């Protein structure tokens, strides 16, 4: 979820092969005061946000406002058409038949909130077409759970201590990952 844009190019990547061990490792690593840059998993892990200490997403608040926009638009447009622009009598119903507006209003509300939330999500995570993302390890889409640490400003001693902690917490592999300048940003 978090793809914070920094100028770091040097990272330490720890890889785990089991969800349970991974979750406990995150808790212990955070407890030691080590900052985690990113977390990558092959599938949604229950309780991961909690372990990483993430704040509740504000995406649904955005969704509410998108939905409200769609609802207002639908009601306003239909009211304008049916009462002012082109009033037609349908089977003796009133010129402002509110009950028959509701299905369309509902659909537009859903459409606006769905599209709005999807686009907001893509923009916030910089997932627009043509972007080349930074890949820390290809196996995170298969069977590995990765923790990424920002190593740009860390001393060698700190880096080796992070590696040691990861190994102790059950990481199957710990490696350095260095990107070329501005690669995939």
């Amino acid at each position: 979820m978090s793809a914070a844009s920094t100028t770091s190019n040097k990272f330490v990547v720890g890889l785990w092969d089991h969800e349970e061990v991974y979750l406990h490792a995150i808790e212990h690593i955070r407890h030691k005061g080590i900052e985690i840059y990113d977390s990558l998993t092959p599938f949604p892990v229950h309780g991961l946000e909690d372990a990483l200490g993430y704040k509740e997403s504000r995406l649904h608040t955005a969704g509410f406002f998108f939905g409200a926009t769609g609802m207002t638009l639908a009601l306003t447009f239909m009211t304008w058409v049916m009462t002012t622009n082109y009033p037609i009598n349908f089977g003796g119903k009133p010129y402002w038949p509110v009950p028959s507006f509701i299905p369309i209003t509902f659909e537009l509300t859903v459409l606006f909130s769905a599209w709005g939330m999807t686009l907001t999500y893509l923009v916030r995570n910089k997932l627009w077409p043509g972007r080349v993302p930074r890949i820390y390890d290809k196996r995170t889409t298969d069977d590995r759970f990765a923790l990424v640490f920002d190593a740009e400003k860390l001393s060698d001693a700190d880096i080796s201590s992070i590696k040691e902690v990861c190994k102790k917490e059950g990481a199957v592999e710990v490696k350095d990952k260095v990107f070329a300048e501005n690669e995939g940003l």
Partner: protein
Amino acid sequence: MTDNFEFTDKLKKNLFIMMGIGLLGLVYVFLLYPENSHARLWSNILANTYYFTGIGLFGMFAVAAGTLAYGGWHILVKRIFLSLSGFLRIGGFILAGIVVLGLLNVHTLYDGVKHILHEPVVTPNHTTKVIFFAPVFWVSRVFVYAGLWLGFSWYMNKFFARTDQTDPKVYKQSKLLAAAFIVMFALTESAASWDLIMSLDPHWYSTLFGWYNFASYGCAAWAMTILLVIYLKSLGYLPKVNENHVHDLGKLLFGFSIFWTYLWFDQFMLQWYANIPEETSFWVKRFGHGYFKFTIFLALIVNFVFPLVFLIKRGNKRNFKIIGFGSALLIFGHYVDFFNYTFVEPNWNHELDHKHHAKVETEKVVLYAANEEHHTTATTTDATPAHDNTEAVATEVKHEEAKHEGESHAHETGAEGEHVGHGEAEVVANYASINIGEVLVFIGFLGAFLFLFFRNLAKRPITPENDPYLKECERITVTYS
């Protein structure tokens, strides 16, 4: 260690007092409202029994659905769901009894159906209705539901206790039982809603009525479960149930409230738009009367607007006070919903129906005329011809109306001797209201429901210790910083 619920004498005494209050309420309604052979008393019994039977059925459905879906979230409250079915020991049979007594002319609730069996007018689907409501078929159907519900509630409680407490190997077999229950529930629940509630107004159709009742039951059952969980926790039971589990129940309560509204609106809008007299007479009766107009909108506000505004927020669903208050309110709201369906007395009446049909027709024409006038004056200056024309149509309709009334009178007198059971007693349109009698009867039925629930709950340990999904349920913890 045993964690059986202890059904204390104090609680028993309180519940017996509630049942006593209910009995008092029945006597009160019996004495004060003798119209239409005490129809209001029978409406009270029917509405309350139907409501609580539904909650009991839905409790079993929740467990069956959870079992079939490999669900883990409900395991800690599983025994509460199953114990809700305690009311089915009597519920189904009271409902069957009401149908039998209706056919024996003890009360007038089902007079519409009795009339349709002999009605000379062939309305659409008239033949099918005559077959469907043939007394023997009808009564045996209702008894079959009652028997099936009783049997399943007894067997499911027993079987799930076995899988939960002794041998996890038989857990797989419980899937078969759950599947059988779902099939039985789907068939009997919708058919029972036609037989018991929709038949109160035999001309009125609603093809989604079974679903609609299912949604009502759902809301009421989740709400009841939340309240019982909070109550049991306050007594010190269910130590492992926390706000995460209540949150899950709250989400279902919220979702089912929206589902209920969806069905309510579907039913209303299609009938409003199609404007078929058989269907609209149902709404004309209710919207045409001040109190019922009020209760219909009250039900919509309590069952839709309230959950939409107050239960959509995550924190509110995790706060025991807010979700508890909301649950109590929704239990009341869905009672009001059933009140709207059962308490128009008589729901069906030959004479009144003709009047309503005529009224619908007149309103349609008048409405059309008003619109036409508005439109023509808006576009052209000369609107007199259109106006005159509609005036003439409206008068014609009034003539029609008068003719219909005459016919129906003639028909009533002609049919009297043959079959109309309630004899010479005049049928009057009596619109009930939720007053002291209804409240007392509801408290009584709630007492009976809770008594049977606690009795059922006390029989077996609350926690299903050998359920393979118990650990998953205990571990649900999602807290944002």
